[in-house]
C-alpha cells in the first residue's frame, strides 16, 4: 500500500469522456496522418465534444470480454467494485473504433483496396469480439468530393464498400485532405460522438438488464456495483442528470449493505467514491447547496463507522480525506465562477480535514508505539500478486472473502501490525500543515482574519511538533501581535509558551528573552510558579548561564538545545539586546512624567520616571537612561550602578536599582534647560532600561516616548473611565493607574518682573494722532539691560487694518502711509531697580472699527539657577483694544432762498448750501476752521467765510454753516454737477498745542441743475400791516433765447385788496426782464395768503404755477393796525 492510499483514484476524479480509438493512422512517418491526428488533439476546448482519443494500431488487442453469464443464481460477488473497472472504460475499451484508410473514389485498383479495407475492419471486429463497440471507417481522400448525388461512381463505390465491410452507411466517412481540415475533423468527431453515445446507451441497457436476475440476499454488492456502473456510463454519455440520479441511488444502496468490521473499509471507500461523484456533479450543475447537503449527510452517516479500533487512525485519515476532497471540489467550483461566503467556504473543509489529520496523528501515536524491536512482518501481508487490490477498500490478505468471521486471526494480526508500522512512517505533520495552509489561504480570501490567525497558530504548533522550530517561531511571532492588540491574553499566553519552547530549543537568545519578558508581564495568564521558573531562567540567561529546559519538551531536542546553550555561553560577541517595548507587554512598565507642562528657563526642569515590575520576584536593573529630542540633556538623565553580576540575585529590595513586584518606583531627574531652548518643546524620545550587565548579557528595554507598551493605552483608557476610589497609600507612593504620561514640556522664558501700563483716552477718532502713553517700571532686584519696546497694531489681524493704521513716536507731525503699523525693537536703554520710564506713542487710524494694539517690552537680566549663571531674556506684553470712531457727522443739504428743500437747483438762480456738523466724539472737539472749496461749476453769491471758526463742540452738539451759491447754466449734465469739498480742520479740545490739526475733507454731493425758461422773483417787504399799502414788485426774467409770450393773471385773495394789472398778456424779449408792480392792501392780520400770481408761458406748457411758487412768496405776515387803534378799543372796553 502506498502512503497515499487515501487519495481518491485519478479515474474517479477525472471528468469521464467517451473513449474513441483511431486506427490506421501513421502519426510518426506520415505527414497527412500527423496533421489529421493533430487536428483531433489540438485546441480541445469546451466547445468541442468531450471525447478522449487514442491512436492505436489496427491490430491492437482490446481487453477480452468475459463470457456472458446466463444465470446469477450461483454467482456470489467478491467485492463491490473492481479496481480496474473505471480505468478499463475510460482508457481501454473504446466506444468506437475508427479505421482510417487512404482511398479515393477514382482509385484505379479499387477492388484490391476495397478488400484490404474490409480486412482491416474485420481484424478490428475480431479483437472486439463480444463487445458492443462500434466500428467506423474514414476514407482519407486527396480530392475534394463533389456535392452529394453528382458523383455517381462515388455513391456506387461507397455502397459497395459498406457492403464489403458490413458497415451501415452512417459509419462510413470521407475525409478530404484539403485546406479545411479542422472543419472536416469537427464534423467527423461530432459524428463519432453520436456513435459513442449510442454505445454507452446500449451499455447502460445491458447493465440494467442484469438487474432482474439479482436477489437481495446474495447480490447486495451487485446492486451497488450495477448502479455505480449505470451512473458511470451515464457520465461517459455526458448525461449528468441521470448519472447524478443513479449515483444517489447507488449511495443509498451502499449504506444498505450489512456492515461489519471486515468490510467497513470497503463500504466507506465506495461511499466516499460515490459521494465524491455526487458532490462533483452537484457543483457542475451549479447546485452547491445540494453538494453541501449531500456531503453533510455523508459525513453524518460515516462519522461513526470507525471500524477496527486497532486501525482507528485509518478512519481519521479517511475522514480527513473526505473533507479535503470536498474542499478541493468546492475550491474548483469557485474557480469556475461559484461565489462562496464567509461562513461557507472551502476553508472550513480544509480546516476540518486538518483536524481529522491531527486526530489521525494522535491515534497513530498511541496505536503504533511499538517497540523498536518489532519487525515488519515477512512475507509482507500487504503485498498482492498483482501489486494492486482486486476490489476497492479490501484488505490485501483476505481479498474477496465475504465472511464476517476472521478465518485466520493470526494473519489478521500480522496484517494489522503491518498497517500500523506503515502508519508510523507517515509524515503526519506535513499532511496537517498542508491542509492548514490550504485553509489559511481560503480564510484570508473570505475575510476571516481571526480564523486565519488561529490556523496559523495551529500550523506553528504543528511545526513545533515536527521539530521545525524556525518555521514554528516565524508563524507564531507573526500572529502574536493580533492576539495582543485585541487583548486575548489567555490565547497570547498559550502562543508565547510554545514560542518560548521553540526559542529555548534553538537557543535563540533574543527571542527567548523577549518571550520571557512578556510571559512575566501582566498580559500573561501563567500561574505564579511558572512565572517564578521563567524569571529564574531569565536571570540565568542574563548572567550568561544556560536556562533550565522548558517543560514538556522532547528529550532529544532538549539535549541538542543544551549543547547549543553551552555554545552560546562560550561565544563572545554582542550580548546586548535592545527590545522595543511598544510592540509587546513586558513585565516592567514605565511612565515618564514632567512635573509641569512648562518650565521657566530659570528653574530646573524636573520629571519623574515611574517603573513597576509585574514579575513574581524583585529584579535589579543596571542602568536607566532617558533620551530627549535635544540630545544635550541625555547626559544629565542617566542612573547607573556598577553592580557586579552576582549581585543581581541578591534580594536588595532597599536598593535604588531594584524593582519590587507590584510597587511603583519613582525616580526623580532634574536638569537646567538651555536658554536657546526657550519657546521650544523638550520631549522624552525614549527611556532605556538595562537588565543584566554588559559583562554578562544585557537586555535594554526601550520605551518610545514617555513609556507605554502594547497594552497600556487601553489600560489608561479604562483607568480614566474608572471612578473607583483608590485606597490611600503612604506619601511617597503613588497608584500606578493614576500616573498619566507627560512626555513633553515647554521651556518658557523667565517671568518678567516689570510693570507695563498704558494710558490713553479711548475711543480714537478717525485720522487723529491718538496718543498712547506707555509706562515701564522695573521691579527687578538687579539692573535690567537692553530694554526694548515693540508697539503697534498686533499682528495677525485683518490685513486692511495694517494699511490703515500707522504708528509713530513723534506726535508733532501727521504721519502718512509710509509709517509702519508696528514699531519693533525700539531701544529704550537700561533700567535700574525701581526705575520707571515713559514713552509716548501716536497712532493714526484711518478707518473706524476696533483694533488690538500690542505693547511688548523685552529685556535681559542675569540670574543663577542651580549654581549656573544664565542670561535670561524676559518680556512682558500688554494688549489693548481701541475702538476708532468718526469724530463728527457732516450733513449737507441744498435749500432754496426760501429755505425750502431742493431736489434740484435751477441754473443761474441762487440757492443755499447748508452744512451741519454733529459731534460724535465723547471728547470735546475744537473746530479750528472750516473751508468750502467750490467746484469750478459753482460760483458764490457772497463771501465764503467760515462761520464756525474755533467753535468747541461737546458730544451731541452740532455746528451749521450756510453758503449762498449759484450755478451758472451749463446745459444738461448727466448725474448732476460737482459742488466741491468741505474741509474741516479740527483737533481734540484737550490736545496739546503742538499736536497737529487734522483736516477732514468731505466731498459735497453732486447736484442736478435744471434750466428754467422764466425766472420770477418778487420784491416785497418782510411784513405788511393791516390797511397799509404793501407794494410788491415781480421781476420776470426771460432765461431763454426766444421771445416769450406770457399770460399773467392775479387771483384775488380774501385778505387783500390790490391794485395793478389783473390780467395781462405780454412779450418778454430774450435775456430781458419785465417788472410788474402791484399794490396790495392787507385787510386781515396774521399769516395771510398773497393773491396768487399765475403765469402761463405759451411756449412752455411745462412751466407750471407749482414751479413758480418755489421762487415767489405765497404768503406774508400781516401785522395788525397801529397803537392808535388799540387805545380806542381799550377805551371802548
Amino acid at each position, binding site marked *: 500500500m502506498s502512503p497515499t492510499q487515501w487519495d481518491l483514484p485519478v479515474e474517479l476524479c477525472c471528468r469521464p469522456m467517451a473513449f474513441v480509438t483511431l486506427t490506421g493512422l501513421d502519426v510518426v512517418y506520415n505527414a497527412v496522418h500527423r496533421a489529421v491526428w493533430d487536428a483531433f488533439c489540438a485546441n480541445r476546448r469546451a466547445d468541442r465534444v468531450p471525447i478522449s482519443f487514442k491512436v492505436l494500431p489496427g491490430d491492437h488487442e482490446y481487453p477480452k470480454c468475459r463470457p456472458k453469464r446466463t444465470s446469477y443464481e450461483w454467482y456470489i460477488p467478491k467485492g463491490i467494485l473492481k479496481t480496474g473497472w473505471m480505468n478499463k472504460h475510460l482508457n481501454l475499451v473504446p466506444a468506437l473504433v475508427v479505421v482510417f484508410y487512404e482511398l479515393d473514389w477514382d482509385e484505379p485498383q479499387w477492388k484490391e483496396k476495397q478488400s484490404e479495407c474490409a480486412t482491416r475492419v474485420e481484424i478490428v471486429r475480431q479483437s472486439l469480439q463480444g463487445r458492443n463497440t462500434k466500428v467506423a471507417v474514414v476514407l482519407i481522400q486527396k480530392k475534394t468530393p463533389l456535392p452529394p448525388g453528382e458523383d455517381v461512381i462515388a455513391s456506387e463505390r461507397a455502397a459497395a464498400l459498406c457492403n464489403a465491410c458490413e458497415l451501415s452507411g452512417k459509419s462510413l466517412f470521407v475525409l478530404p485532405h484539403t485546406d479545411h481540415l479542422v472543419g472536416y475533423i469537427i464534423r467527423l468527431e461530432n459524428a463519432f460522438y453520436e456513435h459513442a453515445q449510442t454505445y454507452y446507451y446500449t451499455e447502460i441497457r445491458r447493465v440494467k438488464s442484469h438487474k432482474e436476475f439479482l436477489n437481495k440476499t446474495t447480490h447486495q454488492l451487485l446492486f451497488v456495483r450495477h448502479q455505480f456502473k449505470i451512473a458511470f456510463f451515464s457520465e461517459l454519455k455526458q448525461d449528468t442528470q441521470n448519472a447524478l440520479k443513479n449515483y444517489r441511488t447507488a449511495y443509498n444502496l451502499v449504506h444498505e449493505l450489512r456492515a461489519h468490521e471486515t468490510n467497513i473499509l470497503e463500504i466507506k471507500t465506495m461511499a466516499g467514491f460515490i459521494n465524491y461523484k455526487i458532490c462533483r456533479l452537484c457543483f457542475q450543475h451549479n447546485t452547491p447547496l445540494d453538494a453541501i447537503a449531500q456531503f453533510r449527510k455523508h459525513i453524518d452517516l460515516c462519522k461513526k463507522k470507525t471500524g477496527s479500533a486497532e486501525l482507528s487512525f485509518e478512519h481519521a485519515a479517511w475522514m480527513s480525506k473526505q473533507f479535503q476532497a470536498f474542499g478541493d471540489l468546492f475550491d474548483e467550483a469557485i474557480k469556475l465562477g461559484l461565489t462562496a461566503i464567509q461562513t461557507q467556504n472551502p476553508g472550513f473543509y480544509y480546516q476540518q480535514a486538518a483536524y481529522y489529520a491531527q486526530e489521525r496523528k494522535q491515534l497513530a501515536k498511541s496505536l503504533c508505539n511499538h517497540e523498536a524491536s518489532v519487525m515488519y512482518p515477512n512475507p509482507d501481508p500487504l503485498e498482492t500478486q498483482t501489486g494492486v487490490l482486486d476490489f476497492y477498500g479490501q484488505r490485501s490478505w483476505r481479498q474477496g472473502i465475504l465472511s464476517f468471521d476472521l478465518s485466520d486471526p493470526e494473519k489478521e494480526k500480522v496484517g494489522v501490525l503491518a498497517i500500523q508500522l506503515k502508519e508510523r512512517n507517515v509524515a503526519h505533520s506535513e499532511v496537517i500543515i498542508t491542509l492548514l495552509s490550504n485553509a489559511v489561504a481560503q480564510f484570508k480570501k473570505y475575510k476571516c482574519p481571526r480564523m486565519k490567525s488561529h490556523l496559523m497558530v495551529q500550523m506553528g504548533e504543528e511545526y513545533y511538533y515536527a521539530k521545525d522550530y524556525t518555521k514554528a517561531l516565524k508563524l507564531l511571532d507573526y500572529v502574536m501581535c493580533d492576539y495582543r492588540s485585541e487583548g486575548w491574553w489567555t490565547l497570547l499566553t498559550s502562543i508565547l509558551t510554545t514560542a518560548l519552547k521553540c526559542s529555548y530549543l534553538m537557543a535563540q537568545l533574543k527571542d527567548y528573552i523577549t518571550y520571557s519578558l512578556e510571559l512575566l508581564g501582566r498580559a500573561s495568564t501563567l500561574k505564579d510558579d511558572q512565572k517564578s521558573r521563567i524569571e529564574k531562567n531569565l536571570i540565568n540567561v542574563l548572567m550568561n548561564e544556560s536556562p533550565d529546559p522548558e517543560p514538556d519538551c522532547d528529550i532529544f531536542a532538549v539535549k541538542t538545545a543544551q549543547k547549543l546553550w553551552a555554545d552560546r555561553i562560550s561565544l563572545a560577541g554582542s550580548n546586548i539586546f535592545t527590545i522595543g517595548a511598544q510592540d509587546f507587554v513586558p513585565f516592567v512598565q514605565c511612565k515618564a512624567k514632567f512635573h509641569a507642562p512648562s518650565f521657566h528657563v530659570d528653574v530646573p526642569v524636573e520629571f519623574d520616571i515611574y517603573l513597576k515590575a509585574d514579575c513574581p520576584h524583585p529584579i535589579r536593573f543596571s542602568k536607566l537612561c532617558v533620551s530627549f529630542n535635544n540630545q544635550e540633556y541625555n547626559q544629565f538623565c542617566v542612573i547607573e550602578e556598577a553592580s557586579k553580576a552576582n549581585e543581581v540575585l541578591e534580594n536588595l529590595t532597599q536598593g535604588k536599582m531594584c524593582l519590587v513586584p507590584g510597587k511603583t518606583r519613582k525616580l526623580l531627574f532634574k536638569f537646567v534647560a538651555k536658554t536657546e531652548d526657550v519657546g521650544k518643546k523638550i520631549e522624552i524620545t525614549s527611556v532605556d532600561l538595562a537588565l543584566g550587565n554588559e559583562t554578562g548579557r544585557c537586555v535594554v528595554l526601550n520605551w518610545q516616548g514617555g513609556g507605554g507598551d502594547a497594552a497600556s493605552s487601553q489600560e489608561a483608557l*479604562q483607568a480614566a473611565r474608572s471612578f473607583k476610589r483608590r485606597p490611600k497609600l503612604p506619601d511617597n507612593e503613588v497608584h500606578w493607574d493614576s500616573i498619566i504620561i507627560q512626555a513633553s514640556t515647554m521651556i518658557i522664558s523667565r517671568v518678567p518682573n516689570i510693570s507695563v501700563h498704558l494710558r490713553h483716552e479711548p475711543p480714537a477718532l478717525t485720522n487723529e494722532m491718538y496718543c498712547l502713553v506707555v509706562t515701564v517700571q522695573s521691579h527687578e532686584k538687579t539692573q535690567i539691560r537692553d530694554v526694548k519696546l515693540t508697539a503697534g497694531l498686533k499682528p495677525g489681524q485683518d490685513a486692511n487694518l495694517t494699511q490703515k493704521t500707522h504708528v509713530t513716536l513723534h506726535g508733532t507731525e501727521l504721519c502718512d502711509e509710509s509709517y509702519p503699523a508696528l514699531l519693533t525693537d525700539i531701544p529704550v536703554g537700561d533700567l535700574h531697580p525701581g526705575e520707571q520710564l515713559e514713552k509716548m506713542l501716536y497712532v493714526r487710524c484711518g478707518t473706524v472699527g476696533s483694533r488690538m494694539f500690542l505693547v511688548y517690552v523685552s529685556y535681559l537680566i542675569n540670574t543663577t539657577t542651580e549654581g549656573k549663571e544664565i542670561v535670561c531674556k524676559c518680556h512682558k506684553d500688554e494688549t489693548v483694544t481701541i475702538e476708532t470712531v468718526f469724530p463728527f457727522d457732516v450733513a449737507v443739504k441744498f435749500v432754496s432762498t426760501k429755505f425750502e428743500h431742493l431736489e434740484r437747483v435751477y441754473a443761474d438762480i441762487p440757492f443755499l448750501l447748508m452744512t451741519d456738523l454733529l459731534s460724535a466724539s465723547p471728547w470735546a472737539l475744537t473746530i479750528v476752521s472750516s473751508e468750502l472749496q467750490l467746484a469750478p461749476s459753482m460760483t458764490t453769491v457772497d463771501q465764503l467765510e467760515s462761520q464756525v471758526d474755533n467753535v468747541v463742540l461737546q458730544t451731541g452738539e452740532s455746528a451749521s454753516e450756510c453758503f449762498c451759491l449759484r450755478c451758472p447754466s451749463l446745459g444738461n449734465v448727466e448725474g448732476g454737477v460737482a459742488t466741491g469739498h468741505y474741509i474741516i480742520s479740527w483737533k481734540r479740545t484737550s490736545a496739546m498745542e503742538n499736536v497737529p490739526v487734522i483736516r477732514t475733507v468731505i466731498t459735497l454731493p453732486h447736484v442736478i441743475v435744471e434750466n428754467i425758461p422764466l425766472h420770477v422773483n418778487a420784491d416785497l417787504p418782510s411784513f405788511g400791516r393791516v390797511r397799509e399799502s404793501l407794494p410788491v414788485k415781480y421781476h420776470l426774467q426771460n432765461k431763454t433765447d426766444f421771445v416769450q409770450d406770457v399770460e399773467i393773471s392775479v387771483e384775488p385773495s380774501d385778505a387783500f385788496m390790490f391794485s395793478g394789472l389783473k390780467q395781462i398778456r405780454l412779450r418778454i424779449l430774450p435775456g430781458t426782464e419785465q417788472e410788474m408792480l402791484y399794490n396790495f392792501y392787507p385787510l386781515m392780520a396774521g399769516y395771510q395768503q398773497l393773491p396768487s400770481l399765475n403765469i402761463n408761458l405759451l411756449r412752455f406748457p411745462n412751466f407750471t404755477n407749482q414751479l413758480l411758487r418755489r421762487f415767489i412768496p405765497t404768503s406774508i405776515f400781516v401785522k395788525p393796525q397801529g397803537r392808535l387803534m388799540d387805545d380806542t378799543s381799550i377805551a371802548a372796553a
Partner: protein
Amino acid sequence: MAVCIAVIAKENYPLYIRSTPTENELKFHYMVHTSLDVVDEKISAMGKALVDQRELYLGLLYPTEDYKVYGYVTNSKVKFVMVVDSSNTALRDNEIRSMFRKLHNSYTDVMCNPFYNPGDRIQSRWALLPVSASSPGPLITW
C-alpha cells in the same frame, strides 16, 4: 444549555468567558475569538443595510463539526457569543434567543453594579450565570 458563553467588549477583547470545565478551555477561547470574524462582518452589514437596528440576535455564526456558535450584539456593540453542542438538536432558535436575552439581562445587572467599571474584565466566574447554575456542572444552563 451551552458549553461556552462569552461576553466581548466593543473593542473585541474578552470581558468574560466561561466554558464547561470538562473540556479544553483554550479551544473555546479560540472558537469565540474566531467567531468575531463573522460578528464583525454581520455588524458591518447591518450598518450598511440599516435593517431593524433593534434586532440584536445575530443567529448562527458558523457551524463546526462538533459545535454551533451563536452571536448576539447589544446596541453598545458588546457581543455575546454562545457555543452549543452540535448534537443538541433540542435547542431551537427561540431557545437560543431567550438564553441570549437572559444573558443580556445578567450583563445589564453587572453593569448596574456601582463597583464595576465598564470595560473591565468581569472577574467573578459566576457573574453572568443565575444562582441555580452556581454549582460547577458540565454544562451551562439557565
